């Protein structure tokens, strides 16, 4: 430091120190910047990053919820659960899909067709969507997969909840069935969307669908801590889900199974109702299908068969089938005429047979009986189901008055409002209806055929059951249901019904008629129809008063009969199946103290008296035998 002198040295030192000072200031600024950044991330945004960190490390495993069960009136399980072992895979989470599938193929002995199918599914969906490799592993296969799981990354063995219907086809139309939730289920039902996990089965039909929200239950959620490679390190917690609510319905399995047996070789419907509580005791539609077939996904061939079967096994005929009621409408026509004071029960009409049919504006109106009934009164006309008599009654009554009475008793309307989404309303015609629906004026001739349950009028079997029940209880309003209500007291209901005639304010069980004697008259005629000689269902009667019932047959034409056909007078076997008449029978019993009403329909079965009434006879035996058991349950609060 000698050479350049002291002055320049001071200058150099000053320069260095000045620059160092500037640098230090800059450093301080940067460090404060770092502290500010730390503060922003760790204090200001802590919550956000804490959430992100948890999202990083915590994986939720949602298990399928356990579905509530269905029980019958006596508490017997009619739709239960079973464990189903499935194998799922999410392609996105698999390193080498081809290798994995080959390994799985070896372990499970899958066929090449299965494998092709898996690739097909894979190509048709997003990589993050689950592929169900198998929905029906045996316990052995399931354990085998679990054993090899450590070198099958991405594969997910899943225990899911499947539905089991112990009574196979008996309840198919009432309960419906469950199957994998579709895209449509997810978008139309928020609860399904919320609880959904791959493999979840939801109600597709019937009560399974209607009560989805109650039945579905909540998911069990397992929380795992995973590392950056998705490997589970430990289980943090399990949040147990609740099983869905179980539902008890009013149907008696014994009777329900019996209806299946009775309709085994027929296409048709049976429905039975408690005439006071409105409870459905049995409701069946034939042919049916086995809902257990849907458990592992129904095969496309089976599904095609069900859809193309001309007897329509997928349709619940009891509520969705629309038919001409035929002569089963006559009690209502008679009641309507009496209520409106149109005729006296003594009105006499001469039924002269096919040689001299009733003629109106050039059209001929035949009675079903070739030889004719001769002079008929109202009661006899119901008993023997004389068409000619009812042509006359309905001509005098008019279609609009008939419409009012029929609607009051439940025709042309939904019966089980909150239970089924596929129930049909049917048609009870009126002049106004025709104007609106068809745009034409009403013809008198149409009134005549409406009076014998043909023409525009269309009802479901269940509507006729309700009509019969409301006649049998003396003409009082009831509320059909499929879920039993233990608060309903038969004595109270009966009491209300007996004293509702002159009440100015409406009761729950209000009277549907002006004069209850008119109902009694009709019921008496129905009794005679079944229990007196020449009655249309006389051959199906039961004389034991315990089982004795009253009813009305019906034979509904499915096409207009031509003169030529009338001349031929063909036997049932000679007519093509699809052109045969539908056989109806409506009835209630026991006659002395009625409690149950029912409807039997046999599609293309021929006449009501020869086909439908004998079925009702068998049913009443069963129903009355089960009655005591049923009442025990009703009066025992503690049960179920």
């Amino acid at each position, binding site marked *: *430091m000698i050479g350049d002198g002291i002055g320049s040295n001071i200058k150099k030192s000053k320069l260095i120190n000045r*620059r160092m000072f500037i*640098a230090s200031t800059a450093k301080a600024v940067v460090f404060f910047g770092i502290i500010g950044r*730390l503060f922003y991330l*760790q204090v200001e945004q802590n919550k956000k*990053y804490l959430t992100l960190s948890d999202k990083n490390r915590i994986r939720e495993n949602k298990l399928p919820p356990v579905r509530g069960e269905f029980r019958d009136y006596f508490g017997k399980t009619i739709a239960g659960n079973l464990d189903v072992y499935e194998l799922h895979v999410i392609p996105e989470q698999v390193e080498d899909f081809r290798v994995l599938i080959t390994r799985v193929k070896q372990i499970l002995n899958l066929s090449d067709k299965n494998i092709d199918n898996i690739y097909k599914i894979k190509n048709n969906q997003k990589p993050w969507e689950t592929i169900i490799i198998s929905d029906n592993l045996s316990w052995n296969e399931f354990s085998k997969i679990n054993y090899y799981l450590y070198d099958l990354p991405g594969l997910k063995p899943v225990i899911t909840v499947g539905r089991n219907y112990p009574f196979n086809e008996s309840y198919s139309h009432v309960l419906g069935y469950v199957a994998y939730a579709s895209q449509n289920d997810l978008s139309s039902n928020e609860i399904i969307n919320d609880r959904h996990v791959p493999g979840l089965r939801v109600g597709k039909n019937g009560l399974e669908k209607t009560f989805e929200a109650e039945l579905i239950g909540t998911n069990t959620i397992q929380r795992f801590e995973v590392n*950056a490679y998705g490997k589970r390190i430990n289980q943090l917690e399990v949040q147990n889900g609740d099983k869905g609510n179980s539902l008890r319905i009013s149907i008696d399995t014994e009777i329900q199974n019996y209806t299946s047996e009775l309709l085994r070789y027929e296409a048709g419907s049976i429905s039975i109702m408690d005439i006071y509580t409105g409870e459905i005791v049995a409701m069946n539609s034939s042919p049916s299908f086995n809902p257990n077939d849907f458990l592992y996904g129904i095969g496309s061939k089976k599904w095609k068969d069900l859809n193309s079967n001309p007897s329509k096994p997928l349709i619940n005929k009891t509520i969705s089938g629309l038919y001409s009621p035929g002569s089963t409408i006559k009690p209502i026509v008679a009641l309507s005429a009496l209520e409106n004071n149109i005729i006296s029960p003594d009105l006499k009409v001469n039924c002269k047979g096919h040689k001299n049919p009733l003629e109106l504006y050039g059209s001929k109106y035949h009675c079903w009986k070739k030889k004719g009934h001769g002079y008929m009164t109202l009661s006899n006309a119901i008993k023997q189901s004389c068409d000619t008599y009812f042509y006359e009654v309905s001509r005098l009554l008019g279609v609009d008055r008939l419409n009012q009475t029929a609607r009051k008793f439940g025709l042309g309307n939904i019966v089980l409002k909150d239970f089924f989404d596929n129930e049909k309303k049917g048609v009870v015609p009126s002049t106004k209806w025709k104007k609106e629906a068809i745009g034409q004026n009403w013809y008198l001739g149409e009134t005549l055929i409406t009076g014998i349950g043909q023409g525009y009028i269309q009802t479901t079997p269940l509507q006729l059951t309700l009509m019969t029940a409301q006649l049998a209880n003396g003409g009082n309003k009831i509320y059909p249901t499929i879920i039993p209500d233990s608060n309903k007291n038969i004595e109270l209901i009966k009491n209300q019904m007996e004293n509702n005639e002159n009440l100015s304010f409406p009761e729950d069980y209000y009277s549907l008629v002006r004069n209850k004697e008119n109902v009694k008259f009709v019921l008496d005629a129905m009794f005679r129809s079944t229990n007196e000689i020449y009655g249309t269902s006389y051959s199906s009667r039961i004389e034991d008063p315990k089982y004795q019932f009253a009813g009305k047959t019906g034979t509904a034409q499915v096409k207009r009969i031509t003169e030529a056909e009338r001349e031929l007078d063909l036997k049932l076997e000679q007519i093509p199946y699809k052109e045969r008449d539908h056989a109806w029978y409506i009835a209630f019993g026991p006659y002395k103290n009625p409690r149950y009403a029912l409807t039997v329909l046999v599609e293309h079965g021929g006449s009501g008296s020869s086909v439908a009434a004998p079925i009702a006879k068998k049913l009443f035996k069963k129903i009355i035998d089960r009655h005591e058991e049923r009442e025990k349950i009703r009066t025992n609060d503690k049960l179920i």
Partner: protein
Amino acid sequence: MKSYSTFGETSFLQKVRYLDFYLLISIMLLGVISILAMYSTDISDGNFYHSFNHAIRFGVFFVFMVILSFVNIKYYFSLSFPFYVLVLILLVAATFFGTAVSGSQRWINLYFLNLQPSELMKIAIIVFLARYYHRVQPDAVNTIKKFIIPFVILIIPILLVLSQPDLGTSVLIALSGIAVIWLAGINIKYIVYSFLALVISFPFVISMLKPYQKLRILTFINPDRDPLGAGYQIIQSKIAVGSGGLTGKGFLKGTQGYLDFLPEKHTDFIFTLFSEEFGFVGSVLLLILYVIIIFRILIIGSNSRNYFGKFFCYGFGISIFFYISVNMLMVLGMLPIVGSPLPIMSYGGSSMLSVMIALGIVMSTRIYSREIIN
């Protein structure tokens, strides 16, 4: 400040008394913290490979540093050119014949240590330039003649390291060199011109960058561009730091680190792990510890009677600030991920060795502060 005079030899004990104990204690404290942090990174691996190695290295290099402290600064002064040349030779060797790891050739295998000469160059450049400017008067600094040599000395290692390729280290070498040149009194406008030249050549430089380096710059601009790819590191690092909160998740309880969400948690992202476990408070305390170290280095520099020591301490003080802030700003998502270790904290022998050598020279400046070098 007391220090022994140049006139006559002083006993070893006296030299020991002239050691800067604040600095020594701070370094030891930092060493302990770094070993604990390294232990935490090892937990998920189930072995203690990194923490064990780190502890051994810290121990050995710390002793080495203390030994270096007692070497007279004159020797460093006279050895500075050869030291630079030696490191440059090593750098050339590493660049052309070295061990390649993940596409970057920057190591020489010395069996006990994988030496990364570019780390040593960070120090060698300061030593060389401090020696160079020791005799240059401020007025002469801005002459072409006195500018060309430092420029060449600086640009050679930068280009070599850049070609390895190692963007982070080359930037830090450049910053260290520029810091000393600037302290020596270079006219600000030269730096401004160089910077402008750099900006103009930027598109050209970009085209020369490796694809992964381009990706890193793009990712820095928008980390969400590719959250599972290149942006992953930044996002995970921010999550780790942010989720630490005010006081942290607790020692050994950082989930981001433990569950392997943090990339390179032993090396460049050690601060992230530390910050997750010790929170804002811990991070600020760590930063304060670094500030104390820098402050002591600058104090030693200001008390040095020779320009070599002064330049070196100031230069290293600024450089270590650059190491720290580049690393922190990087893991906090404010700079692109360029790969730069946090001094002493990060795993890696070469980085620790070069920092310890520098601290040894600083300590020697302290003990021999009255030494006058002609």
